[in-house]
């Protein structure tokens, strides 16, 4: 069966067909809003924005400055929020990778969740390190300190970047999934190793005591701001991962379809020749 020109360049045909349909039928929610949205994510998005607004209100204005740290404690609301999400994202990536590799539950959906979570995680790791550096500058006068937690977070950030690079290596979706899943799980193995090595290492040096002044006395409003931060960033994380996962799903489908169309086009090139040979 010959493949028509329209089927190969399907956007042209579908575009015009959709335009006719749209005028006749009411459009669904996500068609109006853009493609990865659903009523649920819309509600989630609204909740996130509201939550963030509350966070800014309390974090920057309504909560008091700390007794010892002064205004710099306001950074901690952001910093703790982002580091919480960064580690949750890493955990989700690791678990999804495991689910992908385990024969009984293997599905590309897990691979896409792992990838989406890692991307969001990289952003939040970067924000964590940034906010942490600023906070360190304000509290101790240094942008950086070589203690276990900070170093492990930086290590995790680099590892994530490497993980995303591995996802971009190409090949089939299954290959991508397998490679990156293994990398993610190996990273899980390394994290405690790195943390422990740095802890042991810095334990030798007196300078480690600088990191000891991180105790913050949290009173009611400050604790509340912290909770708002945790909630806001969790909502944001879920929203981002859901959208990203759907984008990845569409990408994968398009890749597959692209291959199908390319194969069909190739077949179309050869078939007419056969037909004419039969005629003869």
């Amino acid at each position, binding site marked *: 069966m010959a493949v028509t020109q329209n089927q190969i360049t399907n956007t042209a045909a579908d575009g015009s067909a959709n335009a006719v349909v749209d005028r006749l039928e009411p459009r669904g929610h996500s068609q109006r809003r853009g493609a990865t949205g659903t009523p649920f994510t819309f509600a989630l998005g609204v909740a996130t924005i509201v939550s963030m607004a509350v966070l800014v209100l309390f974090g920057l204005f309504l909560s008091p400055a700390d007794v010892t740290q002064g205004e710099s404690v306001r950074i901690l609301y952001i910093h703790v929020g982002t580091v919480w999400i960064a580690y949750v994202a890493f955990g989700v990536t690791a678990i999804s990778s495991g689910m992908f590799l385990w024969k009984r539950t293997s599905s590309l959906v897990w691979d896409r969740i792992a990838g989406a979570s890692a991307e969001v995680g990289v952003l939040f790791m970067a924000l964590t390190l940034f906010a942490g550096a600023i906070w360190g500058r304000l509290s101790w006068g240094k942008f950086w300190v070589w203690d276990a937690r900070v170093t492990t977070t930086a290590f995790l950030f680099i590892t994530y970047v490497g993980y995303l690079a591995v996802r971009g290596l190409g090949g089939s979706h299954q290959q991508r999934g397998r490679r990156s899943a293994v990398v993610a799980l*190996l990273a899980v*193995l390394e994290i405690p190793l790195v943390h422990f090595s740095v802890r042991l290492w810095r334990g030798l040096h007196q300078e480690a005591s600088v990191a000891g002044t991180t105790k913050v006395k949290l009173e009611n409003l400050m604790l509340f701001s912290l909770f708002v931060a945790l909630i806001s960033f969790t909502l944001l994380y879920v929203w981002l991962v859901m959208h990203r996962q759907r984008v990845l799903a569409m990408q994968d489908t398009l890749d597959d379809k692209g291959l199908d169309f390319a194969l069909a086009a190739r077949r179309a090139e050869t078939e007419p020749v056969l037909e004419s040979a039969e005629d003869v």
Partner: protein
Amino acid sequence: MLRVAALIAAKDLRIEVRSKVVTNQVLPFAAIVMVMFAFALDTDEVVERVAPGLVWLATLFSLLILVQRSFAIETADGATDAMRAAGVDPAGIFLGKAIALAAQLAVLEFVLLITAVVLYRAELHAGGVVLLVTTFVAATCGLALVGTLYGGLAAGVRGRETLLPLLLLPVVAPVLIGATRATEAALGTRGALVSDGWPWLGLLVVFVALFGVGGTLAFGPLIEE
């Protein structure tokens, strides 16, 4: 699995003996790195203080090249694919290549140690020999295992090899920390005592155990194409 490993290790080492890439290229590279450290760090006191660290840094940089080489010989003729298609146990391939890599690393580290004694005036003394030898053995095994694992991942298709340093160097950070501290203890650098070094050796052993098992399990899925 062990028989496969022995065969693969022998093959890799035979290729090395015939091509002499390590002796002619990697060792000189490592030596130059050691010299450049001295250029960069300027004063004798500084260089002597950090000598153990420099030895391990030079080892790590050379490891990148050794791993690339180890897998270049596979992908040149599609050897790994052929072995897998023939049903060769991937765990055996993993261990075999790791053993060969470890042997090459051992030679490299020995030369670097001598270089450190000569260039940086590092001092070996009898009390630290046991610690020194066990540290080098443990670190070598750890580096060989991890190198082979990530080498397998990064090998082959163009655009993948450049990924190796980014993936491998963060992973070997615990080895760098542990091996350097243990070596400092063994050599008595900066007044370190030999007894200080044993916890670090413990860390290295844990590393070897984790990646020995993890690598053996992970290598199969990784080279599946």
